[in-house]
């Protein structure tokens, strides 16, 4: 049996995929959506502020969003791993999955760089946001949109996986 099939055939992966319980695949998918909403949404709020919207909002207190953004990230890392196990032979052989991982990795690096270069800048909130901060905001928005796009397209390209009975696919 191949390595991927052996992951997919573990008791846990089988239960996630085949159990009729809402606590299996549906609940995990829901957690993945909530994590996405907070991780990407809070990032976007910081990005818009860096780009000059709501300019009278002080930036420094926004650093506390990072706790929630990391919580969203880890919820999605965990739920994503479980979803991946359930469909290992199809998702791990889907090129779109690796494209998604590259964009998520770059977006998270971008998020860390914003913290180090913008939030740790002693001149934060005394000087206008610099060129670097604005560029990081643009790349953050683009990288997260790309990650979401790749994530969604995993359901339509490559080997069949995802929700049971999913009918709408590009052949």
């Amino acid at each position, binding site marked *: 049996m191949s390595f991927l099939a052996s992951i997919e055939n573990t008791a846990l992966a089988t239960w996630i995929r085949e159990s009729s319980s809402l606590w299996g695949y549906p609940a995990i998918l829901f957690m993945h959506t909530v994590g*996405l909403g907070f991780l990407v949404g809070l990032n976007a709020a910081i990005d818009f502020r860096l780009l000059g919207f709501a300019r009278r909002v002080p930036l420094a207190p926004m650093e506390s969003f990072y706790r929630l953004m990391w919580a969203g990230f880890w919820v999605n890392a965990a739920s994503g791993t479980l979803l991946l196990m359930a469909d290992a032979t199809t998702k791990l052989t889907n090129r779109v999955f690796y494209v998604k991982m590259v964009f998520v990795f770059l977006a998270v690096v971008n998020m860390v760089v914003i913290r180090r270069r913008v939030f740790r800048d002693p001149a934060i909130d005394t000087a206008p946001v610099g060129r670097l901060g604005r560029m990081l905001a643009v790349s953050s928005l683009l990288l997260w949109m790309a990650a979401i796009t790749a994530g969604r397209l995993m359901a339509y390209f490559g080997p069949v996986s995802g929700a049971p009975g999913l009918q709408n696919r590009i052949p």
Partner: protein
Amino acid sequence: MIQSFSVWLHSTKLSWAVAGGIPWLWPLCETLHFIGLALLVGIVGVLDLRMLGMAKGLPLAPLQRLMPFAILGFTINLITGCLFFTGDPFQYIHNVAFAFKLLFIGLAGANVMLFYLTGLYRRVDGVGAGGDVPAAAKVVAAVSLFLWIGVMFWGRMLPFIGNAF
């Protein structure tokens, strides 16, 4: 009436296009629906969490200037959502999860109306950095968080509790 409306809707050219006539249209709408979701939940979430006491250094008045992005997210999702419905109305009209999703969106809308029409919005607008919003506003914020997370729940349950993809 819903049935005959759905039959008519399903016979339109737009329905054909969304349901696979134009193969990339449904995946594109799904992608936009999730980008809209992140915008809406993230921006509304920031406001709700601030009202509940997170990141208290943020003054409310300028923070509320981010609301247009949440409205943008909602609009994207309203349009793409209507397109999904047009593409295959029958998988939604008899779907319990869809009914609950609409109900929760309606309640979230009523909650927002309450916030603006009762003048709570103006009282919150006057809360500066470090300040606390009135208790009534905290209730509105908590209800808002619950309802929008609920909307995501019912949306995700469309294929599982109901039968839509």
